[in-house]
């Protein structure tokens, strides 16, 4: 049962990207106020990945974002208000103020909790996929991670097990060329990440991660395969992060990447190319709706109560 790129899907794709972009821009603009006190790993530049994949998923499917988490959380339908409240450290936050930006969760929306340990949730996704399989049904788990995470042994361990047991699991690698500020060439002997999948008999593909329609098509196929019980797939999405690894600024001053590289990727902006998916009127409407939602989310977050904690013995 392949999915078709209906106008509805197109809207969903563009809307998903736009929601992430505008939310993070607002975070960026407000960050200096020092109200959001946890380390933000901005997703901007990657939006097509989360939006493209999530548009193929159902509510009962579960995504496993990593600490660069805002994108998947929102694209999968996570509660925006609860996310902002979490960044503001409030009791109404999606993690009750305990997690901060690196640890978002919205189980009801199918967003699993995120880890600040690189590769930390790759095996969690396999455990959840195993659970789906044990329980019957055809839900699918989708785990996303960076190029750096593929250097962790656990990634390979999980590929093997997932293939062995034909788990309903989609591996999504968002290859943005860097792990923090180190280029993939300085870390990996061979940089075609998708080929790791091949080794385990898992269908793997590398594609333009900024082309949201291409991502959607590839993900739809992989998800359908997983639903049919035929096992895991892997997509390597080539993309790029616009801002510093962690924080809200540009970081060209550090010198680890060039202005040319950044602008070449900016020219391939997923939102710019994705804009054609909707009409001008639709786009305008979305902008307004999203802006209003963000306004509300920030307002509510700002005025939400602080969490309290009763650490028995804390006072000793």
């Amino acid at each position, binding site marked *: 049962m392949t999915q078709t790129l209906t106008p509805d899907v197109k809207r969903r794709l563009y809307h998903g990207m736009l929601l992430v972009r505008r939310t993070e821009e607002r975070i960026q603009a407000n960050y200096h106020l020092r109200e959001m006190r946890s380390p933000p790993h901005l997703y901007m530049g990657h939006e097509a990945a989360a939006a493209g994949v999530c548009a193929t998923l159902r509510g009962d499917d579960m995504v496993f974002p990593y600490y660069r988490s805002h994108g998947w959380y929102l694209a999968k339908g996570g509660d925006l208000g609860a996310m902002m409240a979490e960044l503001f450290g409030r009791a109404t*936050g*999606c*993690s*009750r*103020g*305990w*997690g901060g930006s690196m*640890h978002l*969760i919205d*189980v009801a929306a199918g967003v*699993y*909790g995120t*880890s600040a*340990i690189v590769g*930390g*949730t*790759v*095996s*969690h*996704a*396999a*455990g*959840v*996929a*195993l*659970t789906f399989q*044990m329980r019957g049904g055809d839900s699918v788990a989708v785990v996303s991670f960076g190029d750096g995470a593929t250097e962790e*042994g*656990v990634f390979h*361990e*999980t590929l*093997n*097990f997932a293939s*062995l*047991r034909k788990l309903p699991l989609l591996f999504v690698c968002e290859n943005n060329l860097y792990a923090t500020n180190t280029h993939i060439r300085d870390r990996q002997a061979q940089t075609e990440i998708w080929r790791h999948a091949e080794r385990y008999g898992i269908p793997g593909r590398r594609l333009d991660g900024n082309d949201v329609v291409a991502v959607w098509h590839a993900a739809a196929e992989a998800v359908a395969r997983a639903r049919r019980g035929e096992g895991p797939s892997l997509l390597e999405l080539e993309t790029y992060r616009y801002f510093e690894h962690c924080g809200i600024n540009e970081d060209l001053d550090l010198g680890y990447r060039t202005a040319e590289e950044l602008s070449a990727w900016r020219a391939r902006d997923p939102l710019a190319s994705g804009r054609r998916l909707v009409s001008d009127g639709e786009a305008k409407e979305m902008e307004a709706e999203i802006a209003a939602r963000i306004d509300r989310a920030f307002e509510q977050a700002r005025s939400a109560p602080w*969490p309290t904690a009763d650490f028995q013995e804390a006072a000793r």
Partner: protein
Amino acid sequence: MKMKFREAVRDATLLAMDRDPSVFLIGVGIIDPRAVWGTLSGALEKYGPERVVEGPLSENALTGMCVGAATMGMRPLLVHHRVDFLLLTMDQIINHAAKWAPMFGRQQTVPMVVRGVVGRGWGNGPQHTQSHHALFSHAPHLKCVVPTTPKDAKGLLLAALQDDEPVIYIEHRWFHEDEGEVPSEFYTTPLGQAAVVRTGRDVTLVGVGPMVAESLKAAQSLEQEGISAEVIDVRTLHPLDSATIIKSVAKTGRLVVSDSDWRPCGIASEVVARVAEEILDSLKARPVRVTWPDSAVPSSQAIESVFYPGAKDIHAAAVTACDKTRATGSVESTVKPFEGPF
């Protein structure tokens, strides 16, 4: 009914799987016909490879998979042939399993159990004989138990499999052949409760794992010195049941804690610290820790036999604590060499 320790572990495992479809087994080599010293015999035949999940040699990933499954309401029981292998999985145990509930404001629980077997004996050497229960008793949101009798082996495993926090279950292969009375029905030995296994007046002997038997043996020989010893089996190391220990030491005024692990930052230290902190004034003598020496566990029988402390050391410590000058030294520890080579 009479059951061996290994049978009690098996009994608990099959009972839990029977009662609760969310319980499943996973681990390296668990479909091996030897079935982890027989502790899983019959599970594969009864529940099939879907609920007895053979793991590749990927301990780290297997542990993370248990975290994932547990947060979805499953109750995985992850089995390792040696505790030493758990060191490959500390990131998932401490950074993930133990953090998942608090880190997300307690929206999920992580009901998973990790069983690790201590391989003491037959020259298993430095990397196959560690217990490391102290490492699992330090970080919050993680429990750690060490059963010492067939009855508790079953009761603690069933309790662990019902608990909503991750539990590390440290199992001494040493006990596998021990026989004892074990109720055949379902029951739990509550987590977080120590057991007073012998009552006495003059000194409290607190033991962990194999040191409980050594303490009991010492208690017997102490009778000949006119010393009446109370013996406590800690059973759950984390959270520690201070109340039971404190109550006993408040009565006896003397404390000897023996542990089958290294001393620094160990359970023996924790017990002594709690007692000193809470009832210093009741202490009539310096508390004593009897623990492994500051050394890796050697392989050769010649030095292994000197390495492990036993009833003799506990006896001597108690005699000193009770201000008797004369120690018989006649008591020998209950050492029974493990006979299998594996």
